[in-house]
């Protein structure tokens, strides 16, 4: 050990090992030497939930469209926005129409908004539908679709199927008093 080389060598090695290992030993000691608890990820996912409720149904013979207005509530912890709706609706069990979302809806957590869906009708559909409204007390609407929802910056496609029964008296017409 001419110039203390060996001493420096082993001392620096010992300190390095001590410095590197001490936090790990402390970790094990603080968690009762339970490796499983130390390496298992801990994660509580936020709640992602919503509710949807029909508010209004309107038919416009002139524009040949049925407009359904829903109240959409964000019951979760993460905001989302509904961007698109793809699918079809069946009115009164026999009139099939495409469906479209009138506009995108942004819903921060614990908020509610209005989602309006348009069901465009061709002339033959209008001709079938009007007698139904006149003669039946209720009219059924079956929607089979998928919602394109943005959750943060992920695009989520959610199946959206709903079956509504609208009383004919509540199915307002915009063209007649």
């Amino acid at each position, binding site marked *: 050990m001419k*110039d203390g*080389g060996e001493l420096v060598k082993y001392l620096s090695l010992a300190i390095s090992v001590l410095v590197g290992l001490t936090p790990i030993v402390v*970790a094990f000691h603080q968690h009762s030497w339970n490796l499983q608890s130390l390496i298992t990820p801990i994660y509580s996912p936020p709640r992602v939930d919503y509710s949807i409720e029909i508010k209004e149904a309107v038919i416009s013979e002139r524009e040949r469209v049925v407009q359904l207005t829903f109240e959409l509530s964000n019951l979760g912890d993460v905001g989302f926005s509904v961007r698109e709706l793809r699918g079809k609706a069946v009115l009164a069990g026999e009139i099939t129409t495409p469906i479209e979302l009138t506009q995108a809806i942004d819903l921060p957590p614990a908020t509610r908004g209005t989602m309006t869906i348009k069901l465009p009708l061709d002339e033959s559909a209008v001709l079938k539908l009007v007698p139904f409204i006149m003669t039946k007390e209720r009219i059924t609407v079956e929607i089979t679709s998928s919602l394109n929802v943005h959750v943060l910056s*992920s695009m989520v496609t959610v199946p959206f*199927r709903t079956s509504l029964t609208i009383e004919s008296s509540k199915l307002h017409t915009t063209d007649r008093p």
Partner: protein
Amino acid sequence: MNLLHILTINRRLNIVALASSLLLLYVALSEDPWWVVTGGSEESPTFVVKISPFIFDMSILEKEVLILIIPYLNLAAKLTLLLTSLMMLVGSFMVKKRWSRYLVSTRGATFPIVFLVGLFLGSFVASSYIGFSIPIVGEFTVNFTIPYGEGLITVITPSKASLTGMFWIAVAVGLSSLLGKLIHNRSLR
């Protein structure tokens, strides 16, 4: 006067090792990540992973993911690099002492290498759990489905992984510590 004498001021001070020790100190104390993975946009990411040997920050849907041992490993890495930096600092002033060769080490260079190897291994292991592979650098799409009633919920998240500027600074510092060690060994002959 040759280059070795210039770089050690006539065997009084190893300038490269000194610079390297100060840069190691900066790297060890920096809170900047070396590798970042962002799912979705940077303004409102669906998930974010920010990693360096000294920090670990992971969140999914704005909720943090914790792994209890990670802060201790980060602390061990930080203390090890701080010690390396301190030893290099002392060693750089002791060019004439033969024992100083034990103080001027190449440990600074091993950090980026071990980190990169760890990323490859971690990404490989993670892919077997999550069902898709995460590149070290590049864009990828996280695509998975969850059964929901009679249908499926499909989630698509365009994502991006990148090594940050701090990683490349650490690589440069590692190379400078290799050079400092080389100069030190030469000047001791």
